[in-house]
């Protein structure tokens, strides 16, 4: 019982961390239509910033700054946002597939830097000994305390972003997403709005990476492989892009799909065939993902029609 509880606490914590990143992506894609295929790059920057600020000095890389956890988390977000600003300025003219490929490439480059800049990142060996808040507590209490931190961060990010997208700013952002030419003709500074959304969306990704580093206590370039970007995207699409609650729900559902399908395989595949389990698990994930999308092509929760809290979605006219 305690064991299952402890695992559940862990599961919810990790899913919450992903949900934070997914919310950031939702601002970028769901509300402003920017195809960021480099989510892991921003998560990595957050994680490495946090690690560099808190890990002890080690012979292969700098360290020993010993920042307090909260300050390091904030710094991680700030650095991520700054990097996002630089990237956003470079890619401001790119749209859809082009932006996707550019950001994907930038994330790959960030990973390469993490792997090769041993002096800062520890290279492939990664950075160990990162400050873990609540590490002195007994394991279950650590789990609960960290869950509270992760869930609190998720709630804060959710509320902040929800307030934003339900404001006139969010409405203008959606208008830009729908038709840039029309939005510009009606006085919206398209570049500026896109850039702002890109930067604000990147900050939670950095936070997510930093919290992940704080949770595990170790980061390496292998934590931020392209597959994680896909998973975050799958969370958004399955949950329903353009809907923050959907993004959070999708994070839990998709992370369950990925981790719990392994458990299902353990439970149903006979011991003798266990080594086939991996392939079976992958097939299972694939089938479920496809089935979910066919079943709910607009995600578990679709986009809300209205930004303004003054307006109610009226089901009768909504098609």
């Amino acid at each position, binding site marked *: 019982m305690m064991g299952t509880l402890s695992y559940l606490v862990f599961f919810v914590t990790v899913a919450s961390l992903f949900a934070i990143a997914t919310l950031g992506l939702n601002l970028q894609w769901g509300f402003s239509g920017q195809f960021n295929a480099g989510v892991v790059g921003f998560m990595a920057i957050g994680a490495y910033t946090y690690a560099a600020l808190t890990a002890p000095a080690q012979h292969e890389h700098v360290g020993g700054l010993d920042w307090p956890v909260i300050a390091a988390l904030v710094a991680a977000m700030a650095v991520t946002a700054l990097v996002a600003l630089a990237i956003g300025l470079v890619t401001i003219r790119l749209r859809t597939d082009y932006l996707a490929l550019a950001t994907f490439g930038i994330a790959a480059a960030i990973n390469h830097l993490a792997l090769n800049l041993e002096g800062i990142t520890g290279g492939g060996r990664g950075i160990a000994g990162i400050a873990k808040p609540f590490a002195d507590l007994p394991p279950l209490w650590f789990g609960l305390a960290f869950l509270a931190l992760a869930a609190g961060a998720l709630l804060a990010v959710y509320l902040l972003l929800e307030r934003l997208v339900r404001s006139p700013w969010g409405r203008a952002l959606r208008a830009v997403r729908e038709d840039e030419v029309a939005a510009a003709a009606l006085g919206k500074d398209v570049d500026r709005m896109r850039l702002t959304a890109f930067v604000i969306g990147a900050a939670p990704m950095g936070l997510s990476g930093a919290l992940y580093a704080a949770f595990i206590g170790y980061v390496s370039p292998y934590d931020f492989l392209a597959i994680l970007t896909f998973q975050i995207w799958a969370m958004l699409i399955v949950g329903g892009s353009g809907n923050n609650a959907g993004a959070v729900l999708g994070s839990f559902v998709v992370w369950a799909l990925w981790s719990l399908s392994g458990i299902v395989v353990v439970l149903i595949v006979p011991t003798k065939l266990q080594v086939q389990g991996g392939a079976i698990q992958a097939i299972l994930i*694939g089938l479920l993902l496809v089935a979910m*999308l066919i079943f709910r092509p607009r995600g578990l929760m679709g986009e809300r029609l209205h930004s303004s809290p003054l307006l109610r979605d009226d089901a009768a006219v909504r098609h």
Partner: protein
Amino acid sequence: MIAQLVIDGLLTGAVIALGAIGITLGLAILRFANFGYAELMTVGGYAALTAVLAYGGTGAPLGPFSFGGFLAVALAVGLVVTALVAVASDVVVFRPLRRRGAGPLVLIFASFGLALVLRHVVLLIFGTQPEYYSREIQMAVLLPGDVRVMPDQLLVLAITVLALVALWWLLNHTRMGLAMRAVAENTPLARACAIDPEMAIRWTWIVSGALGALAGTLFGLTVQLRPEMGANLLLPLFTAAVLGGVGSIPGAVIGGLLVGLAENLSVLVLPTSYKATVPFLIMLACFLLRPKGLFGK
């Protein structure tokens, strides 16, 4: 050295270009980035391999090439099998999604799920070990200028150019091509022109599957077959297709060759550990000058 790097770049780029044509077809007509396309390459390569294994090899090597005439038969088998798989995946996955008005992102992730399934089915059937059509190692031929090339790779380059011309012809000078493009842009209007969208889309899948099988087989011939080959190729393929300009068939070929060249020439300025980053840097530079790719409209 530079001459060698350039030739190598073009030759490794050729197989990327060939695959990128298929990706571009998907982007242009089906209007989404089909992650499953790379798995179609894998399926095609392994289908041809099955034929080769059943026959017991590819036959006596032809001229300077590493393979025998039976490879053509095996390729035909691969084309048919892959086209069937492609059409089936449309019927089972993508058509229901289209009917329910799914957006391109949903299609992308469905294709991602489908790719997982296909890849691991291949893995379950064939195992994880690399396979070859012919285990003969082909010795490079020395050309003037101290440049070494492999005849098989020259063949790939030639076939890429042929495929480019054929596809361009299909799209621009046949009824079917016109129908495909019309459906891609505006399906209701295409219907109002008496075009059956389902038929046009089916043909797109067939062509795309056949191209995938061709690319997969040639990749298997010049490198090796393994269940993750498609997944590993995905990135260079998309880079090439987008670099060339989404939807532009000649763009995909130029993009593919550029990616090959960039990777090979990058070693002149950067350590090889950054090699995989270089195509992206090139691409970023291109995008800064031409935000819609080299041939994009």
